[in-house]
C-alpha cells in the first residue's frame, strides 16, 4: 500500500522584491523517511523550509499536514503542529547556557523560581537516547560549532517535534561528527520522526536519505528514490544541462592531478615558533612553525576549537602573535598592519564569513573592493571619471569576479546580506 504523505507543500511561490526565489515548488514528505533536499547555492532550499516553519510568508501555494490543509503564520504555529527546524545559521542566545537555550519559549515547570531540575532530567534523557552528549550548563559562546549543532537538534527534540528540518547541518562538522549525526538521525527516524535534510553535498544525501528532491533556481526538478538513481543523475539535475560538469569547481571529482611542489624554492609564507596567548590568558598556539611553498595547497586539520581559527588569523596578520616570526616572501611581516599584508599579495577568507568576511549591508561590488580600494586600478579609475563614486570600476571588478559562480541575483549592487550561503 502506498504511504500517505505526512506533509505536503503544493505549488509554493515566493518572491523577494523582483527576485523569484521559489516558483511553483511542490514537496512531499512520507512518514518515517529522511528526505534529502538538494540544490546549489541560492536554489531556494532554505526559503522553502522557512516558509514551512513560518518564518517567511508564501505568496502562493498550500501546505497540507496529514492530508489536512493548514495555515502557518509563525514559528509558534509550526512548533505547535510538531514541525521543528535546525537553521543553517544557528539561532541561539550566545550568553545563555545550553539548558536555557533548549527550554527557552517552552512552558517551564517552576516558572517563578526557574529551578530547572525537571527540564534537566528530560534533556539528559534525550541526550542519552539520541546520542547527543552536551554539557547542559556550558554557556553557548564557549562551545565549538559541532556541539552547538547538537544543542540545536536537542531544542527541536525537546519540543517533541514529529517533523524535523535540518538546514545544511554538516557544513561545519568533522567527518566523525557527520557520522555521529547520521547515526542520531537514524535513531530519530526509528523513533517515529520524519526528517528533511537540506544539503548540497551529494555524497551525504546518497548515504543517508531515503528519497531526494532536487531544487534548482527556485524550481523543483525531480524527486527520486535513492535506490533508483546514480550520482550523475543528481548532478545533472542540480546544475542543469548547460553547465559543464567536468569543469565545474563545485563538483570536482576526486581524480585531481596534483602539481609538483618545489620544496627547495624559497617559501612564500613562513611561520617560526609562533605563540599566541588569548586575552583571557589561555595559550591558543604553541610554537607553531611551517613553510608554505609557491603553488602549494597547504592543509591544516584538527577538530574545531583547537587553534585553526587563531592560526589563520595570526597568519593573515589580523591578530598579532604573542611571540614568534611571520615571513612573507622572505621578508619579516610580523607586526605589519593587515592593509600592508594584503598589498603584498595575501588574501584571507575567514571561517565565519557572515561575521568577519563582509559588510552585509554594502553591495557585492563594494564588498569586493573593500581592502583593495586604496590601490591603483580602483582608485585611479574612480578619480579619472571625476567622481567620488567607486561604483563603476567596482561593478566591473564584481562582474569579472562573479562570472564563474554565475550568481543569479540581478546586479552587483544588491546588498550582500540578501544572498544565501
Amino acid at each position, binding site marked *: 500500500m502506498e504511504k500517505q504523505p505526512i506533509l505536503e507543500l503544493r505549488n509554493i511561490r515566493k518572491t523577494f522584491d523582483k527576485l523569484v526565489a521559489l516558483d511553483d515548488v511542490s514537496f512531499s514528505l512520507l512518514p518515517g523517511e529522511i528526505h534529502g533536499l538538494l540544490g546549489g547555492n541560492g536554489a531556494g532550499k532554505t526559503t522553502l523550509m522557512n516558509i514551512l516553519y513560518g518564518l*517567511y510568508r508564501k505568496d502562493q501555494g498550500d501546505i497540507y499536514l496529514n492530508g489536512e490543509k493548514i495555515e502557518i503564520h509563525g514559528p509558534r504555529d509550526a*512548533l505547535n503542529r510538531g514541525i521543528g527546524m535546525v537553521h543553517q545559521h544557528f*539561532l*541561539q*542566545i550566545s550568553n545563555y547556557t545550553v539548558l*536555557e537555550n533548549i527550554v*527557552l*519559549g517552552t512552558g517551564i515547570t517552576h516558572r*517563578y523560581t526557574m529551578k530547572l531540575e525537571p527540564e534537566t532530567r528530560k534533556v539528559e534523557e534525550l541526550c542519552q537516547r539520541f546520542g547527543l552528549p552536551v554539557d547542559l550548563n556550558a554557556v553557548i559562546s564557549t562551545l565549538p560549532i559541532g556541539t552547538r549543532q547538537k544543542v540545536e537538534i536537542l531544542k527541536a527534540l525537546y519540543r517533541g517535534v514529529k517533523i524535523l528540518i535540518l538546514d545544511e547541518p554538516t557544513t561545519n562538522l568533522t567527518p566523525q561528527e557527520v557520522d555521529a549525526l547520521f547515526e542520531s538521525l537514524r535513531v530519530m527516524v526509528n523513533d517515529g520522526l520524519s526528517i528533511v535534510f537540506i544539503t548540497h553535498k551529494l555524497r551525504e544525501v546518497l548515504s543517508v536519505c531515503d528519497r531526494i528532491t532536487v531544487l534548482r533556481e527556485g524550481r523543483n526538478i525531480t524527486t527520486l528514490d535513492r535506490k533508483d538513481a546514480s550520482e550523475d543523475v543528481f548532478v545533472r539535475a542540480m546544475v542543469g544541462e548547460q553547465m559543464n560538469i567536468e569543469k565545474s569547481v563545485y563538483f570536482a571529482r576526486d581524480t585531481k592531478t596534483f602539481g609538483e611542489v618545489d620544496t627547495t624554492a624559497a617559501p612564500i609564507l613562513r611561520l617560526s615558533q609562533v605563540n599566541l596567548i588569548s586575552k583571557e590568558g589561555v595559550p591558543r598556539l604553541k610554537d607553531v612553525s611551517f613553510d608554505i611553498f609557491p603553488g602549494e595547497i597547504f592543509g591544516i586539520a584538527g577538530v574545531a576549537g583547537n587553534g585553526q581559527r587563531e592560526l589563520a588569523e595570526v597568519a593573515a596578520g589580523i591578530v598579532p602573535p604573542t611571540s614568534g616570526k611571520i615571513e612573507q616572501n622572505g621578508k619579516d611581516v610580523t607586526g605589519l598592519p593587515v592593509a600592508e599584508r594584503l598589498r603584498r599579495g595575501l588574501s584571507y577568507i575567514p571561517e565565519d564569513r557572515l561575521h568577519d568576511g563582509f559588510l*552585509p549591508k554594502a553591495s557585492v561590488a563594494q564588498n569586493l573592493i573593500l581592502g583593495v580600494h586604496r590601490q591603483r586600478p580602483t582608485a585611479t579609475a574612480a578619480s579619472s571619471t571625476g567622481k567620488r563614486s567607486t561604483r563603476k570600476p567596482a561593478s566591473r571588478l564584481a562582474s569579472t569576479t562573479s562570472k564563474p559562480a554565475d550568481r543569479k541575483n540581478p546586479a552587483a549592487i544588491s546588498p550582500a546580506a540578501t544572498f544565501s550561503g
Partner: protein
Amino acid sequence: METLITFLRLVLLSMVPFVLASQGTMLGGRTGIFNVAQEGIMLLGASLGFLVSYQVGNNFVGMLAAMAAGAVFGLLLAYFTTTLKMNQFFIGLSLFFIGVGLSTLLPKLIIGITLSPPLIPTLPEVSIPLLSQIPLLGPILFRQNGLVYFSIVLSLLLWYFLYRTQRGLELRAVGENPMTADSLGINVVRARYWTAILGGALIGLAGAYLPMVYTGTFTEAMTRGRGWLAIALTFFGGWSPLTILTGSLFFAGVEVLAFRAQVIGLALPYQYLLMVPYLATILIMILTFRKARVPAFLGQNYDREKRNL
C-alpha cells in the same frame, strides 16, 4: 552623626528619579528598544504631573497622569520603531523635542502666567511602623516618601522578573537575539511594545517626582539633565536592575554633595559644582564602560523576512 543621617536620607530621596528613569530605560532596552527621549519625557511628566495634581488637588492622580503621558511616548516609540521600523535615535530625539516643547506649553495654556508660582503640596513622609524606630537605619530607610519605597521594591521585582522567571528569560532573549526568540515562538513585537510602554511610564513618573518632592511647582528645564544622566546610568549599571539601583545611589550622592557644597558656600562658582555630576558620569563611563554588558540587539529593529545579521 546627625549630618551623616541627614546626608544619607537625602541621598535616598534624590535617588528616586534616577532609579525610575533608568529602570524604565533598561526595561525597553532589554527588548532592543533604546529610548533616548528621557529628558523630554521627564519634563513632560513633571509638567503634566504638576498641572493635574494642581487642578485635581491630588498628587496621586498627578502621578498617574505623568505615567500615562510617558506610556503614550513609549507607545509612539514602539510603534514607529517596531511596526514602522524607523530609526530609533531619530524617533527618540523627536520625542525628546516634543516632550520639552509640551512641558513649557501646557502650563501656559492651563494656568497662564502668574505672579507667584502656584504650589502643590509635596509628598508626605510615610513612616513604617516599628522599622522606623531602628536607630540610624530607621530615619534613613524607613521615614521617606512613598516613591522611595516604590523605587527600591520596583528594582528588586525587576531583577526577580528578569532572572528568575520564564517570562524574564524570554524577554532577555528578545533583546539579545530576536530572530532566535521569534523562531521559538516568542512574540517579539508584543515584548517590545509592553516594555517600551511600561518603561515610558516609569520615566514619566521620574519626572513627576521633581515638582512633587523638590519644589512643589514646575519650572522650565527643571530636570537639569537628569534624563540624559539616566541613560549613562543605565549603561553604567550594565542594563541590570540591581546595579542600576546601586549606581543611582552613587549619582544621587554626587548630586547631594554638589548641592551641599553650594549651601555651605564653598569659594567656588556654583556652575562648577553643577558640573560635578556630569564629570563624575564621564569618569565612571570611562572606567566601567569597557566591561559593561549591553543587550546585543540594543537600538536595532527586527524584521522577520529581512536578513538582519
